[in-house]
C-alpha cells in the first residue's frame, strides 16, 4: 500500500532535514512544476486528481484554485494561506503532518502558490503546537537558504515569501474568512460571502486557503500524476487520507490509508478494536461537528460521498469512538459547550442558541431535565441550519445533537424520567 504522506516519517526520530528530504526525492515535484509546467497546468493536474479539501469541507481543491483571477490584470499581491488551525475536537491529523514532515507541506505550499501565482503565503498555525512551530521555523530557514523560497525560485522567475503566524487561540479562526480577519490583526469574525476569498480575500486580494493535509498531497500529485493519485483511493475521489481514532480503543492513533477504507477497518484493524470492558456504541466519523453513526454503519466507506449518504460527514476523518459506558448526553453536552464557548458572538442564533442548549443539556445530564427540553433541543437542530446563521459553526455544532436525538433519544428520556444520569 503506498503511503506518500507518511513515507518520510520514521519512528523514534524527528522530521527529515532538508538534506534528508531531498535525498528521499523531495523538492523534485517543485522543480517539475516550476520548470516544466505552467501554473494552469498545475491547477489542471490537481483538478484531475479529484483531490478534495482535507480540512473538513471537502471542496474540490483544483476547482477552488480555478476561481482565482489570473493574468497580468489580476489584483496583486495574491495570497495562499495554510489553514493549520486544527482545533476541531477529536482532530490531530495535521499535527501529525506538521511535526512529522514539515518540508512536505512547504513543498506543497510553494507549488500551490505557483499555481495561483500568489507571491505571499502565510502558515496560520494554531497556538500550542509548539513542536510543529519550532520544526517549521527550522524548515523554513532551510528552504530559504536553499533558494526554494524568496525570489526567482529555481530560476523560474517565480518568487514566494512564506511567513509563519501563530494564533492566539479561538476555534473560529479555523473558519476561512475568520482566519483572514485574524491574520489582519482583527477579531476573528467571519465575513459574509459573496464575495468569496479567491476573489476578495486577505487585505481584499485574491486568496486561497487550504488545509495542511490538502497541501501535503500536492507534491505527490504533481510528481506522480493525477491518475496515480486517483489510483491510491478506493473511491472516486483521489488519494490517501490520514485517518485517526480516539476514545476507548486499544490503540488510539493516526494512520495513512487509502481514501475509502471502512469504519470497521480503521476501528478493528488499526485501532485494535474496543478496550476490555467496553463495547462500541457510536462514532463521530470526522470530529466534533459531524453526525454520530452507529454499529449499523461500521461498513460505510470513509469517503466524502459514502459518509454523506449514511447521514454524516467525513469531516477531518479523525474518529471519536463512543463506548457503551460513556453517557451520550454527557458527550453531546461536552460538545455543545465547546461550540457555545467558541461562538464568536456575531449572529444571534449561534451566540444565544448554543449556550441555551448547553444549559439544557447540563440540566438533563445532572438529572434536572424537564419534559419540554427535548423538543427545544430538536427545534434548535433545525433552527441552527445553514443560511440561518452567519457561518457554519452552529450548523456543525448541532450535527452531533441531531444524530444523538435520532439514534439515542431514549437516553435523553431516561435522564429526564429518572432525574439522574444512568451512566454515572
Amino acid at each position: 500500500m503506498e503511503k506518500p504522506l507518511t513515507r518520510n516519517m520514521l519512528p523514534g526520530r524527528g522530521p527529515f532535514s532538508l538534506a534528508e528530504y531531498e535525498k528521499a526525492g523531495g523538492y523534485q515535484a517543485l522543480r517539475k512544476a516550476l520548470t516544466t509546467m505552467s501554473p494552469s497546468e498545475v491547477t489542471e493536474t490537481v483538478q484531475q486528481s479529484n483531490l478534495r479539501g482535507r480540512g473538513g469541507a471537502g471542496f474540490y481543491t483544483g476547482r477552488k484554485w480555478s476561481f482565482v483571477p489570473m493574468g497580468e490584470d489580476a489584483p496583486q499581491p495574491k495570497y495562499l494561506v495554510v489553514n493549520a488551525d486544527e482545533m476541531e475536537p477529536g482532530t490531530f491529523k495535521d499535527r501529525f503532518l506538521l511535526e512529522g514532515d514539515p518540508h512536505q507541506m512547504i513543498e506543497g505550499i510553494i507549488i500551490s502558490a505557483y499555481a495561483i501565482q500568489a507571491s505571499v503565503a502565510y502558515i496560520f498555525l494554531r497556538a500550542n503546537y509548539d513542536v510543529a512551530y519550532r520544526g517549521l521555523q527550522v524548515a523554513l530557514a532551510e528552504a530559504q537558504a536553499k533558494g526554494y523560497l524568496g525570489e526567482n525560485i529555481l530560476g523560474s522567475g517565480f518568487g514566494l515569501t512564506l511567513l509563519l503566524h501563530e494564533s492566539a487561540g479561538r476555534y473560529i479562526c479555523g473558519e476561512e474568512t475568520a482566519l483572514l480577519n485574524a491574520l489582519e490583526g482583527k477579531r476573528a469574525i467571519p465575513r459574509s460571502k459573496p464575495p468569496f476569498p479567491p476573489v476578495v480575500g486577505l487585505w481584499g486580494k485574491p486568496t486561497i486557503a487550504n488545509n495542511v493535509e490538502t497541501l501535503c498531497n500536492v507534491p505527490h500529485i504533481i510528481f506522480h500524476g493525477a491518475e496515480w493519485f486517483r489510483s491510491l483511493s478506493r473511491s472516486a475521489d483521489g488519494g490517501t487520507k490520514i485517518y485517526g481514532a480516539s476514545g476507548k480503543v486499544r490503540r488510539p492513533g493516526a494512520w495513512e490509508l487509502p481514501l475509502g477504507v471502512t469504519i470497521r477497518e480503521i476501528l478493528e484493524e488499526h485501532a485494535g478494536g474496543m478496550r476490555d470492558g467496553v463495547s462500541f456504541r457510536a462514532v463521530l466519523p470526522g470530529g466534533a461537528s459531524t453526525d454520530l453513526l452507529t454499529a449499523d454503519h461500521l461498513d460505510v466507506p470513509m469517503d466524502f460521498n459514502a459518509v454523506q449518504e449514511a447521514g454524516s460527514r467525513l469531516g477531518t476523518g479523525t474518529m471519536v469512538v463512543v463506548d457503551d459506558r460513556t453517557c451520550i448526553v454527557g458527550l453531546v453536552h461536552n460538545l455543545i459547550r465547546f461550540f457555545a464557548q467558541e461562538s464568536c458572538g456575531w449572529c444571534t442564533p449561534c451566540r444565544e442558541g448554543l449556550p441555551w442548549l448547553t444549559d439544557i443539556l447540563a440540566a438533563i445530564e445532572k438529572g434536572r431535565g424537564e419534559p419540554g427540553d427535548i423538543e427545544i433541543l430538536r427545534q434548535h437542530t433545525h433552527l441552527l441550519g445553514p443560511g440561518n446563521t452567519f457561518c457554519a459553526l452552529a450548523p456543525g455544532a448541532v450535527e452531533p445533537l441531531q444524530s444523538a436525538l435520532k439514534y439515542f433519544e431514549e437516553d435523553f428520556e431516561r435522564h429526564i424520567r429518572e432525574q439522574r444520569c444512568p451512566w454515572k
Partner: protein
Amino acid sequence: MPQLTIDDHPIEVPTGTKVIAAAEQLGIMIPRFCYHAALGSVGACRLCAVMFLDGPVKGLQMSCMVDAQDGMVVSTTDAKAVDFRRQVIEWLMLHHPHDCPVCDEGGHCLLQDHTVSSGHAIRRYRGAKRTHRDQYLGPLLQHEMNRCIQCYRCSRYYQDFAGARDLSVMQIGNKVYFGRDRDGTLQSPFAGNLADICPTGVFTDKPSRYMGRRWDYERSPAVCIHCSLGCNIVVSARYREVVRLEARFNPHINGYFMCDRGRHGYTYTSAAGRPRQAIFEGQPADVDATLQHAAERLTSIARMHGLAAVACIGSLRSSVEAQGALVRLCNAQGWPAPAFFDDDERLAAVQTAVAQQHAQVHVSLRAVENADAVIVAGCDPIAEAPMLALALRQAQRRGATIVVIDPRPIELPLAFQHIPLAADQLAACLDDLITRVGTVAHDPGALETGSPADPLAAAADLLVRSRRPVIVCGTDLPNVAAIRQAGKLARVLRENRDSGLFHVLPGANAYSAALLNRGRSMAQVAADIAQGAVKALLVVETDPFHHLPNRKRLTDALARLELLVTLDYLDGPHTRKAHVFLPSTTIFESGGTFINQEGRVQKTAGALQGGTALRLVSNTHPPRLYGQGIPGNQPMPAWLMLSALSGESAFGSSADILQWLAREVPGFENLKAAQPPTGEDLLLDSAGRSEIGRHCLDVTSESPLNPPNSGGGLHLLSTERTFGSEELSCRSPQLIELESTPQARLAPSEARRLALKDGDRIALAAENGFYETTLKVADNMAEGTLAVGRHCHPDWPWDGRHARIADRSIKKIDQRETKINP
C-alpha cells in the same frame, strides 16, 4: 432596475437596493436591529428573515443582505419566516432584563416593538441571565449593558461612521461587551447619536433620564440653530420645558444624525435664570406698557439728536421673521439699517460668500458625502459646523481625498491631508491652485508628477483628476479675497466637472442676515456710540459682549448711551445694563424660519407653550399651584414686539413678514413660493445676489488678516471650539463638562524661538490689557500663528477677533507670582 414582488405587491427599485429597503418603500417594515440605512447591512441579528418563494434566490434569507433582483417573490408573512423571527426574539430575550418599567427606552424601544410584533411571549429559558458592569461614559450618555442585544450598531456607528476610537466591542460569544477600555467621557462630539440608534436601553440620554415617557412628551419637528448647517431635530417637551432633542432625518442636510452641541445646547430655553419679565428703568413691568415706553423714548431721542442717533443691532440667531421685522422697523422710523455682523471684515466675508453661492455651484451637506475630492479652506469643521466633519468622513470612506488648508491644528475623525498655511496667505494659495488647475486643464502634459514635497501640487493634481470636487470655505477666518478665490476655484472646476461650493457661515441665520445687512457692522456701531454719534441702541436677540470681544471698550461705549433697549431670551450684561428690557420667546416657543448656509429655507412651528418650567415653580407632583395664567409667560416673539414698535407699519402676522421680504428685499424672492410645512426643498437663490456682490466688491481687502508686513511677531487668531464658544450651547450644564479650557496653540518652531514649552502659562499683552492662557505646542499648524480658543464670554483686550502680536508681548508667567515680569 429590478422588479420584484413583496407580499403580493410589485415594486421596481434601483439596482443595488436591498430587499429590506425595497420593502420599506412599500411601507412594509421588516423587523430589524443591526440593519440601519446609514450603517448598512451586516447580517448579524438575523431578525429580518423573510421567505423567498420564487426567483433567483429561494428559501429563508436575511432581507438586509440580499440585493433586490428581477423576478424575486418575497413573503414576509410566510409561517417559516414568522417562526424564525419569533425565535430570534426569544433568543435575544434569554438574557434581557425585565426592566421595562425602569428603563428610559420604554415607549420608544425597538426591542419592545419587535418583541410584540414577533409574537414571542413565554420564556422557556430556565438558566441564569448574564450580567455586566456598566461604565461611566460622560455627562451625555447613560450605559446599561445588561440590556444589550448585541446588534453591534453602537460600535459600527461610533468607529466606522463617526471615526471615533474610544468605544468598541470586547470579549467573545454571549459575553461581548460594548464600551470603552475603561470608564471615561466619550471623546466623539457625535456620541449622543448612540442614544438614538441603540435599539434598546443600553445607551440612553442621560440629562433627560427618568423625566418622562415617550407618550408624556409633546414632540414636534424643529431645526437646530447652533451653527449654520440647520440640522433637523425633534423636540420633546413636557411640563413647559424642553426635555430632550433627537435627530430628525433630512436627506439633504444631516441624514440621520446630529452633533452633541446641537443635541444638548437647548437648556437655555428652560433655564432658571432666563429673563421672563419686561423691565422698565429697573422695575418689572407689563410688556405692552414697556413697548410703548420704549417706542416713546426711541422716538424722542431721534427727534432730539437726529435719526442717525438711533442704532439697531440684530442677530444671527434670530428667525427671519425677527430679522425682517427689525429691518422694517428701521425703514419705517428712518433709522439707519440694523447691523447683524461683528465687524466690517466679517460682514464683507459673509456677504461675499452668500453672493457667490448661486444655484449652479452650491452643494448640500449630504452632497459633500459624495465628493471625490474636497478642499477645506480656512475652516475648522469640527469646531465651526461639526456635522460637516461627519460628512467629510463619509466622503473619505467612499474614497475621497480631503485636503485642509488652514493655519490651526485641525483635527478630524478621518484621514486627511493638512496644509498648515497662515491665514493671510490663504487667498494667494487658492489663487495658485486656480492657476495650476487651469494650466493643467489646458495642457494635461503640464501635470507635475506629484513630488510629495509640494503638497499644493498634489492638491491641484487631486482636483484635476477629480469628477466631483467640493470647495469648502469658512467665513470666520478667511478674508474676503480668500473667499472670492474659493468661489472662483469652484467655478473654474465647474467648467468640466460636477464641482460644488460649500460655505460655513457664522450663525444659524447668517445667510438671511447677509441679504438684509445694508448698513454697518456691530463694531462700527460701537465706535459710533463711543464717539457720541449714537445715543440710543436697540439690541435684538444678540449679546454684543459675545460678538465684540473687547469687554472694556464695549462697556465704556454702552455707558455713554442715553438709552439701551434690549430684546432677548438670554440673560447677560446686555440685558442687565439695559434701561428697557423686553423678554422674547425662543425658537422652541414661537418657532420661526431659518435659512441655512446653503440657502435652504426651513420653517418650524413652536414646540411648547411658553412659561416657566413646572419644576421651577412647584416641587410637588402633581403641582398644587393654583392661579390664572401661566407663570413666566410674558415673553413674546421678537418679530411681534418689533412690529409693535413700528406703530402703523406693524405686521399683521409672521407670514406677512415673509411676503414683505419676498417683495421688497433682493434675494428673498423665492419666499413667495408656497411653502410646505418645513419648507424642505425651498432654496433661496436669485439675481438679488449681484447687488450684494457689487456691494462687496467695494469693500477693501485690507483687514487685520492682511496687516502691513511688520516682520516678526505672530498673527493672533481667536478660534471657535466645538464646545464653549457658541453663544447658546455654552450655557448648557451638560456641555460645560465637555469644554476644554481655551488654550493658545503654537507651532513647535515658534515655541522654541520664544523659549516657551508646552503647558506654560503665558500672558499676552495688548494696548490696554492682558490675556492669560495656557500654551499648547501643536505639530500641525502654521508658523507665525498663535491660535487661541474662543470663550463665549471673552475678556479679550483686542478689538477684533484677530490681531497682530509682537514677540515681546508674549510672556511666560512665573507660577509663583501673580504679576507679570516686565
